[in-house]
């Protein structure tokens, strides 16, 4: 065992988690994740995948799977910052129950942000985008109605973002993670919508009444919609490519 661990190099680094005794409960997750971890390890060896040149002051989300992860990370940073502010100074007309629920939503979004940060730094060292600076000047945080309206925008946009970006992921394990997050975003969206108007969780304005489908947006369109809330200029043109 110690001999193996001391063999050095990337290969030993990659294999290290495999030598740690595994609890049965977590094992089945692990078996599923192996394929993804492997694919990423290999793609990490590919030096041809250079980020395109972007104008100065522009943050490129990057290409390939890492681009999709950075895209998600950018949105989660935005959502986490928004709810942190809602939680820190809630509108005076929020009920106690609403404050409680929004503090849970704030935790979920902060977790998503922190998770992507950890996963990108682990799987694609050096490829993570910078911390973004939110611009919430257009949002009145003192009123429940304006907070809910902004929350609806962020949550529906988040759902549409994951729905549209899933097809660009080449690593199955990342796709599953995206799926695990998007349904929680959809739950948030439904909750916020119902607070605005009970029964609007999946009304005809957001779900196509003929196909029964939620919306899906391409990464560039999501970033165009989110750009007004972020100070840095984001470039999503290579995401998934």
């Amino acid at each position, binding site marked *: 065992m110690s001999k*193996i661990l001391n063999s050095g190099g990337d*290969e030993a680094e990659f*294999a290290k988690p495999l030598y740690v005794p*595994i609890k*049965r409960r977590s*094992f*089945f*997750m692990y*078996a*599923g*994740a*192996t394929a*993804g*971890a*492997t694919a990423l390890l290999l793609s990490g060896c590919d030096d041809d995948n250079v980020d395109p040149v972007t104008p100065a002051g522009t943050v490129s989300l990057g290409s390939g799977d890492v681009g999709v992860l950075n895209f998600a990370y950018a949105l989660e940073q935005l959502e986490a910052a928004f709810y942190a502010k809602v939680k820190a100074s809630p509108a005076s007309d929020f009920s106690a129950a609403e404050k409680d*629920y929004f503090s*849970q939503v704030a*935790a*979920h979004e*902060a*977790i*998503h942000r922190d*998770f992507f940060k*950890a*996963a990108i730094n*682990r799987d694609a060292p050096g490829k993570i985008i910078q911390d973004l600076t939110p611009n919430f000047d257009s949002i009145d945080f003192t009123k429940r109605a304006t907070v809910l309206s902004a929350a609806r925008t962020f949550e529906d946009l988040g*759902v549409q973002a*994951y*729905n549209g970006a*899933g*097809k660009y*992921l*080449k690593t*199955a*394990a990342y*796709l*599953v993670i995206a*799926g*695990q*997050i*998007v*349904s*929680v975003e*959809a739950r*948030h*969206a*439904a*909750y916020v919508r*119902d607070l605005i108007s*009970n*029964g609007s*969780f*999946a*009304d005809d304005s957001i*779900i*196509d009444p003929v196909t*029964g*489908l*939620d919306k*899906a947006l391409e990464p560039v369109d999501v970033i165009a919609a989110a750009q007004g809330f972020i100070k840095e200029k984001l470039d999503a043109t290579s995401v998934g490519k």
Partner: protein
Amino acid sequence: MNIFRIIEQLSEVDADVLGRFDSRRAVFKTLGTTAKRGALASAPVFLASLFQKAYGQGTKPTVIEVLNYAQTLELLEEDFYKKMVAAGQVPAGAPKGAIDLILKHETAHVKLLDTTIRALGGTPVTGVKFKTSAFPADYTTQLVVAQALEDTGVRAYKGQAGNLMGAMAGTTSLLQVALQIHSVEARHAAHIRTMRMQTPWIPAADSALAAPLGPVYTGAIPESNTTQSNVDITKLGAGYTANDAAASFDEILTMAEVLDASRAGGLVQP
């Protein structure tokens, strides 16, 4: 990389680890070849495919099989809500409005899947009905079943995403369509849960509920799970509670788990 050592480690948690592979001899023959080639980079790839075969759902289902599986669940949901409306226990106003809206979506999903399966040259499943003897007479319990069906649907679609990677119908990504249904099911689930005075998201405690809800939130990866992609969520940042860690990620169910008699499989009219 010492593959034999890994298998030895696996055998400590899974006595049948070798039984899961095609045959002991075949495994070691292949391992030998891989080692001889000295292609270290290919070893993890080989290992991953080996484990996927051994621990996955057997052979990867075809796109038609995945769509028919989805259709089975959509038909089950559609028939359940039809029965719920017909039973007449849903209070007028917001509750009736919500159930009607959800039924409308399930019917739309059935039509969409039926059309898609036919377009791909497959034969859509038909005639799936909610088990009459399992249909609750009272509204409160009907909502419990609705929650079970919706949260199962969310987990079921999520579990098939990997099997739809790259699948197309003409220029339409079937994975994207599945995701667009998946998030609708999650919206339904959230609303039904709030109708029952539950959080719209799934707390860790739900995995310990009694049947019929409990099994919906258990499985090889229960909804109470707090480790994602080998990252302990509770230890991120300044730390998070196990409940927030569990609720911030929904979990998959495999086809076999969903079709088990303890879950949706037990709600289908034989």
